């Protein structure tokens, strides 16, 4: 590894980190009430007081933290999946996370609307169950990426039918479900941050530990085996890490699309495909992207607050087409 190349990557990591800091400050300063920087500083040091501090500590700060954690989780999950599926268009949707979480979450929302607290844990189990299901369906003398993708499409279609059916049976209550389907961070607060952060920490550590293995996996299954990598075990365990990361994100933010596809790709274009750098890069960039997008979604059309999922889709769909033209 040349020193110059390493230096360039470290600089990029630094730039992403600065971008994240900017996104963080902007996200807690902007909103229906503008809060000046000095007050933010005082409140964070615990020396503030009054209304602004209330808004900061109970609304803006937790929401911003949730946005950051969701961004990290979805980006890492996408980056891992792109390596193990060897497919540039792989993202958390493919391994069934979204459809599983979607059906389970919407079931709670529509059938047991007074049990709102159940949404997150149930969505989480739904996501894991769907991922497991797809894995079992795709298993035949080992795992082939193409079978996971096809099984993912089939299971997603099946679960999507369930979501549609639920929405028709309970059409009077569909509004909240719609917001969740789009993916948003509205009214996310400390309890949501508490749900997601252990997964972010554990997921990040496991992913970074696995970075060298992911690098080797990109050389093709046979070569990876020849170099002494246990290919099936690596693929299975890293899929589990990706599923945990994505499921915990989906369970607090709904079906927020495109982050897991877009961010790892953008990071790869800038930093290259060495996962030892790519994973931290994608985490920092994902954090920044979701914080900026959520701030924009909250403030651009005030007093109407858009779900951040709409912003991500507006950015993400053209990006997806760009990748399609470029790589396939």
């Amino acid at each position, binding site marked *: *590894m*040349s020193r110059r*190349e390493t230096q360039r990557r470290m600089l990029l990591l630094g730039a992403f980190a600065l971008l994240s800091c900017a996104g963080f400050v902007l996200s807690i300063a902007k909103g229906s009430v503008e809060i000046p920087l000095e007050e933010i500083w005082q409140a964070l040091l615990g020396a503030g007081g009054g209304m602004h501090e209330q808004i900061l500590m109970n609304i803006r700060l937790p929401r911003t933290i949730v946005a950051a954690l969701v961004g990290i989780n979805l980006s890492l999950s996408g980056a891992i999946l792109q390596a193990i599926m060897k497919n540039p268009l792989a993202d958390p949707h493919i391994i069934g996370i979204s459809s599983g979480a979607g059906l389970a979450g919407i079931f709670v929302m529509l059938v047991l609307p007074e049990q709102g607290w159940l949404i997150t844990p149930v969505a989480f189990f739904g996501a894991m169950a769907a991922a497991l299901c797809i894995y079992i369906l795709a298993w035949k*003398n080992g795992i082939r990426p193409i079978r996971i993708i096809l099984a993912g499409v089939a299971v997603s279609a099946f679960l999507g039918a369930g979501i549609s059916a639920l929405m028709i049976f309970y059409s009077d209550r569909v509004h909240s479900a719609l917001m969740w389907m789009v993916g948003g961070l509205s009214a996310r607060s400390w309890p949501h941050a508490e749900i997601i952060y252990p997964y972010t920490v554990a997921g990040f550590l496991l992913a970074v*530990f696995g970075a*060298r293995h992911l*690098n*080797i996996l*990109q*050389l*093709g299954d*046979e*070569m990876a*085996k*020849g*170099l*002494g*990598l*246990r290919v099936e075990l690596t693929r299975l365990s890293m899929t589990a890490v990706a599923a945990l990361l994505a499921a915990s994100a989906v369970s607090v933010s709904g079906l927020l699309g495109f982050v897991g596809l877009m961010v790892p790709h953008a990071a790869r274009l800038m930093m*290259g*495909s*060495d996962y030892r750098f790519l994973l931290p890069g994608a985490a920092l960039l994902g954090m920044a992207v979701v914080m900026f997008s959520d701030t924009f979604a909250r403030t651009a059309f005030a007093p109407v607050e858009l779900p951040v999922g709409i912003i991500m889709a507006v950015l993400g769909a053209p990006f997806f087409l760009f990748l399609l033209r470029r790589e396939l």
Partner: protein
Amino acid sequence: MLLETRNLTVSMEGKTILQDISLRFAEGKRTAIIGPNGAGKSTLLRALAALHSDYRGEILLDGENIRRIGRKRLSQRLAVLPQNVQAPPDTTVERLVDYGRFPYRSWFRSSDAKADREAVEWALFVTRLEEFRQRQVLSLSGGERQRAWIAMALAQRPKILLLDEPTTYLDIAHQLEVMQIVRQLYEEYHITVIMVLHDINHALQYADEIAIIKNHGIFGQGPPKEMLTVDTLAAVFGVKADIFINSRGDAILSPISIVK
């Protein structure tokens, strides 16, 4: 180091690919595995490299069953270059070769940086890629790229190198380059080479031992001059061949027609 198969039988989805193969690959020799398409050559090589583990019989490395040798420990003694390899577009030659050190690294323990660097430098030197270390693998010509992959296998510091049709898709100059590297590995570094070859004349010139696979079994094993004759070509490939002597005094086989 001796690699040996005993009654190796491989079947996939109910079809027999290899039947009762018992072969010995002597230490410090270059063995070429040849035979018609679909005879099971690549499967044999993949089984020897433990890439394919669904077989009956035994494969022994210095008398030890390779199933009982840990995956990484095996990769320190035996390197393989399969046919289908790929690398992300931004991979440089140096990084690719460094991946060859993977068997010496683990989750817990970082490897010996000095040994890693020496192995990488040696592999680049042997394959004459020192000038190319910062180039992206995908920007190289076919022959240079194949040398880069061979360099990665060499960075594993193997005693045995397994190559699956290393010259396929290369032009004749690059084919020669690759085969000369193979010769050098054997002559200067005493690495045992086992390779599947398509080109009978490469086998004749660059191997000390020929193993012919036909109809999923062994047709024969022996020195090139005995194994590669007009009669065996007729029996194994169904072609009638002439023999020429080239300007270096090597025998060259030239297929003339199909025999029925």
